[in-house]
């Protein structure tokens, strides 16, 4: 990796650590000056961009880190005693979840544990056999598979969702494109959704869910097909939404981020664990 590419990667990584653009610019410029003066290759002087960005973020932690986030607010989503049966099999047994404004909840569990079912119930799309979901505010829902029109352009899907939210055409496109750019995606003109890669389609899906400033975001494994960088970007969005005071529920089977979320709902049935 030459020094310019290293510096570029450093900037990207620091942005992922939620450092301010100003801080990023200063650190990158200083590293560039050092490399120029010393004539060293960047990897030798600073190590990997990821490692150095993490060290910088830690050094600046007090100013930019999480402690600044506001305390959780009022209850946005409350699911009480949710039970769901399919035929005679009980998928969900009296599940509770309360998410406040400014909180992130992760829903985990084995395949078939009912994660998506639970999310659909939270969204009000599916009736539980018992229990009740109470919602306070506007909902944004990102389904696991598609939820997009194959033959429409991304811009058209932005307009469609935007119109539902009461936004005009131009504003919808603006918001959609800005959301796409934040996920390192620039929709090419004239490319229909069916020609997008799986990961890009998921980005579209996610952008559509977050349009219109929802108070509660329900995200059903929205990062499938993302590369590592975009995956990290996705979590940065989650933290940003949280810091903006939204309630976020993420269905996930990847455990790497669980230490940072506010609560984890494990839907793996206890009996299944005992039987295994």
């Amino acid at each position, binding site marked *: 990796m030459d020094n310019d590419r290293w510096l570029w990667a450093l900037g990207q990584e620091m942005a992922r650590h939620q450092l301010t653009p100003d801080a990023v610019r*200063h650190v990158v*410029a*200083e590293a560039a000056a*050092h490399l120029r003066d010393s004539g060293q290759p960047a990897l030798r*002087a600073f*190590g990997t961009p990821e490692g150095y960005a993490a060290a910088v973020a830690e050094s600046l932690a007090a100013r930019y880190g999480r402690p600044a986030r506001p305390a959780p607010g009022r209850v946005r989503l409350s699911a009480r005693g949710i039970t769901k049966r399919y035929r005679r099999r009980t998928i969900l047994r009296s599940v509770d979840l309360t998410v406040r404004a400014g909180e992130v909840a992760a829903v985990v569990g084995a395949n078939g544990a009912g994660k998506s079912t639970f999310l659909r119930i939270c969204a009000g799309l599916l009736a539980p056999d018992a229990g009740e979901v109470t919602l306070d505010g506007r909902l944004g829902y990102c389904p696991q598979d598609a939820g997009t029109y194959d033959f429409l352009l991304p811009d058209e899907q932005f307009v469609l969702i935007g119109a539902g939210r009461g936004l005009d055409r131009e504003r919808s496109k603006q918001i959609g494109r800005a959301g796409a750019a934040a996920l390192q995606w620039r929709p090419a003109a004239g490319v229909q959704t069916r020609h997008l890669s799986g990961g890009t389609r998921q980005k579209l899906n996610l952008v559509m869910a977050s349009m219109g400033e929802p108070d509660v975001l329900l995200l059903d494994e929205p990062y499938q097909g993302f590369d590592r960088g975009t995956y990290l970007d996705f979590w940065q969005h989650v933290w940003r939404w949280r810091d903006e005071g939204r309630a976020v529920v993420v269905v996930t089977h990847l455990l790497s981020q669980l230490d940072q979320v506010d609560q984890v709902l494990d839907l793996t049935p206890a009996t299944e664990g005992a039987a295994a």
Partner: protein
Amino acid sequence: MDQERRGQWLRGVLDVCVLALLGRRESYGYELAQALDEAGFGQIQGGTLYPVLLRLQRTGLITAEWREGASGPARKYYRLTEAGVEALQRLSADWSVFAGHVDAVIRR
């Protein structure tokens, strides 16, 4: 010297050394690295040095300013704040006491 040991010791005193160097005159990162090298510490990598500078800046012991040098492009110059001057006095006194203890134990 064993590299790992050197690294461990350095981590403990690098900030004090940086404060001391900046106590003599304001300087920028690469110049500080060179000064530390000349003082016998060997080469200090940027990845080690700059996080220390950022932390000192964050805690208010040093301030920084981007400036064109006498020759060459802009560099970020650091200098001690008043709090930094006080901290340097206190830390160098602490170090003398600490090094004295270590010496006393080893030499006995």
